[in-house]
């Protein structure tokens, strides 16, 4: 397996009895009844670049949000230089020298760079300006200060955020997926600056899912999985393989073996219900694939690989997409989502709150939103509508006090079922499911898996997008892996192992077996 090209630099201070800059002890965090962090123990030494690795939903962002004051943990303590602290707001974290650079920098697009840096700062303006100039030079921030911040590249916006943190005398910087929108050169630049900061004694938490970057820049790596730390070692003592292994569920091998025993699905026909040819747009290039009736095609990859963008383009929600989309044999030219639905293709969006569900309205309204024209000629037939609602309520085992329960009050799992009901109501022949089990509890998850198997059995073609690799590998007949806008791997389920898929998702190719 590949070894890191550059050894991470040694830390400036190496004494073993140093007090950590910050320690998190036994942190528990619960969201809507679901524990997301289950006893996290983490610390950061002065001058250390500590990487946090983990799949989507593993808890790395949540942990850092607690550290930066956005969330308060249900249990556990935070120790800053030996003293226990509680942060109720980002302001308090700032005052204690902790600063988080979010994945999407918070800037004031119409204000100048200088103002973005200095507004809200409690410092003498002249001293502040001098310090800014100094820091900018150290950090390599090259923009003019009078330029409008909105015009800055994302890379520079991130540097701006870092300078903000340093201005507030941050001793601890948290970088949340800083490289996801950067070019190769910009990443190199960022790393250079991070090393400079590390030499100054500043500790950095570096959240990422890019293995090679993590191996290059960090001193220590902690891997999170399902709310727990499963590996915490100096970077020099790990390699990619070990990391990938750590991120897999414990029973990965067992599951791989189990699957080989199951029967291949025999209801897959030759009929191609969805064919995508050389689809390209801003976020992806040359994507081509097919889905057959009764087949489940899994689309794996990390956040930012472009899967949702592909899905939206296939459905017709991207006016800039080029390429061919053929639904049930009918070539669509400049189609929109209405046409897709009429041809038999529906899309269950990734962000159900933003695009899928009508939170303030009765759940029934969401379920029937796409088929209202079938529920009565001039007047909406309440009877018919409720019949549809009850039908899916039963079929999907949706737990609600009544069809009219306001969607906002349902649990995540049941909300997702409501959105699924909406998709199923139009009796589609092809369904694109985008992260269908995100934020869904265990038992509802099983229901969703069961539903997918059922639908496939009925001859529906399914494109399953998920960041949970077990899901993909368990349910799919064929697996596509996307990385940075391209499909880089395609395998039949029989030949795939979790390890391989995971590795491909991280951009590592070429391992035939372990």
């Amino acid at each position, binding site marked *: 397996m590949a070894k890191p090209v550059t050894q991470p630099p040694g830390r400036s201070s190496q004494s073993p009895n140093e007090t950590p800059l910050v320690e998190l002890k036994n942190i528990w965090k619960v969201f809507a009844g679901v524990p997301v962090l289950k006893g996290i123990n983490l610390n950061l030494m002065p001058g250390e670049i500590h990487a946090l690795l983990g799949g989507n939903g593993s808890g790395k962002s949540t942990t850092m949000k607690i550290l930066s004051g956005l969330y308060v943990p249900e249990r556990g303590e935070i120790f800053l230089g030996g003293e226990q602290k509680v942060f109720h707001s980002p302001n308090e974290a700032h005052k204690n020298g902790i600063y988080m650079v979010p994945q999407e920098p918070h800037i004031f697009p119409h204000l100048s760079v200088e103002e973005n840096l200095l507004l809200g700062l409690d410092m003498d303006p002249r001293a502040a300006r001098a310090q800014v100039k100094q820091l900018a030079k150290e950090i390599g921030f090259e923009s003019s200060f009078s330029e409008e911040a909105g015009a800055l590249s994302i890379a520079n916006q991130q540097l701006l955020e870092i300078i903000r943190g340093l201005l507030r005398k941050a001793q601890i910087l948290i970088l949340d997926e800083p490289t996801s929108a950067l070019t190769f050169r910009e990443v190199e630049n960022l790393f250079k600056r991070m090393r400079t900061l590390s030499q100054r004694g500043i500790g950095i938490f570096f959240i990422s899912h890019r293995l090679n970057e993590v191996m290059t820049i960090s001193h220590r790596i902690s891997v999170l999985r399902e709310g727990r730390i499963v590996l915490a070692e100096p970077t020099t003592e790990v390699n990619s393989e070990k990391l990938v292994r750590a991120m897999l569920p414990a029973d990965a091998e067992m599951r791989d073996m189990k699957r080989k025993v199951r029967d291949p699905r025999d209801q897959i026909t030759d009929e191609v219900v969805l064919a995508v040819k050389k689809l390209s747009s801003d976020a992806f290039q040359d994507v081509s694939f097919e889905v057959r009736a009764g087949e489940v095609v899994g689309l794996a990859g990390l956040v930012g690989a472009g899967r949702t963008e592909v899905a939206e383009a296939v459905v017709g929600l991207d006016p800039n997409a080029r390429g061919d989309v053929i639904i049930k044999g009918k070539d669509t030219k400049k189609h929109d989502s*209405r046409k897709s*639905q009429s041809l038999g293709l529906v899309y269950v969006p990734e962000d159900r709150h933003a695009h899928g569900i*009508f*939170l*303030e309205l009765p759940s029934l*309204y969401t379920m029937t939103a796409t088929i*209202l024209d079938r529920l009565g000629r001039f007047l909406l037939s309440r009877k018919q509508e409720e019949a549809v609602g009850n039908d899916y309520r039963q079929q999907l085992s949706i737990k609600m006090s009544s069809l009219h329960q306001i969607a906002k009050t349902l649990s995540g799992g049941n909300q997702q079922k409501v959105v699924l009901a909406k998709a199923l109501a139009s009796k589609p022949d092809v369904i694109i499911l985008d992260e269908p089990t995100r934020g869904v509890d265990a038992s509802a998850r099983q229901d969703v898996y069961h539903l997918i198997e059922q639908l496939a059995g009925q001859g529906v073609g399914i494109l399953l997008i998920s960041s949970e690799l077990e899901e993909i590998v368990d349910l799919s007949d064929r697996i596509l892996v996307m990385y940075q806008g391209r499909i880089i791997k395609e395998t039949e389920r029989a030949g795939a192992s979790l390890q391989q898929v995971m590795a491909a998702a991280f951009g590592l190719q070429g391992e035939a077996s372990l």
Partner: protein
Amino acid sequence: MKAQAIKWIKTWEFGLAVLLVLEILVLGAINPTFLNLENLLYSTSDFTHILLAALPLTLIIITAGIDISGVSIMGLASITLGLTWVAGVNIFIALFIALGVGILAGMFNGAFVASTDVNPLVITLGSLFMFAGIAMGLPGLLDALGFKAYGAAGFAAYMYEGISGLPHNFNQIAHGGIGWVPYPLLIVLIFAAFLGIILHKTRFGRYLYLIGVNADAARYSNVPVKSTLVTVYALSGLGAALAGVVLTSYFTSARSDLGKEALLTIITVVVLGGADIYGGKGTIVGTLLAGFFIGFLRQGLLAMGVTSDVVPVVVGGLLVVVVALKLFITTYNQRRLNQQALRISEERR
């Protein structure tokens, strides 16, 4: 059955109904003529134009939009009615032309809102000015375009005085009635029934709620957002035009500046009726009740000797109090729910 009844009692509309009854009783205690049903019904002609504009505005506010150009459309419809009649057209055909103009004006608003991301407030602000201006300039414009009018002075003669001397059967619209029920009230009730059915019983009405709660999700759910918006603003234009026609009949004079003062009252009626300015909430019954409440309130204040100037003070103050109250209630409920959820998650562990 009992649970249903209790739920109904908790609604905003029920509260409004109770308030309305109380108001009539209080006003009646001060001035017994209020309790005379015939008088009461007759007095509604004073404010039916507010309701005619406020009812369809409710639909727009449900979509999280707004339309402040209605008051200008009122004048535009009125002057169109008058001028067309003066040009020799039968008064009732002129009436329909006026309604048509209102619909077209509304469609203009709707098209602008649907096809750009510009704030509907700004759009209807611009059209407020534009329609008012067109209404004023229409007489001169028609003259210039060579249309013929009764009287040697051409259309321009009517510019400042308006057009009076309208046919008696037209004036009956505002002054006649069936038994004790005046025609304007009848028109309002029919219009309200029509809009009520549209809002609560058709898929178009459902689309309005969906768009108001989450326009993006509506688009993803294949709701025909654009055409729905154009239609709902057209309905608002129709309502405003109807109001203009009724006012014209009431004052027996067609003028281009009818209804200018009504904007504040119209919006207060919609908000008091329970519609949420951020979209997704509102009912026809609520707006109707609120309309009567404020209408009778104005009457009552006037009857008590309060000058018509104080009325806007009360109305304005009422608006603020109602909204602030609603917000307090929602935040209080939210906090309670959150605390409940926290307790549950802690117990789970």
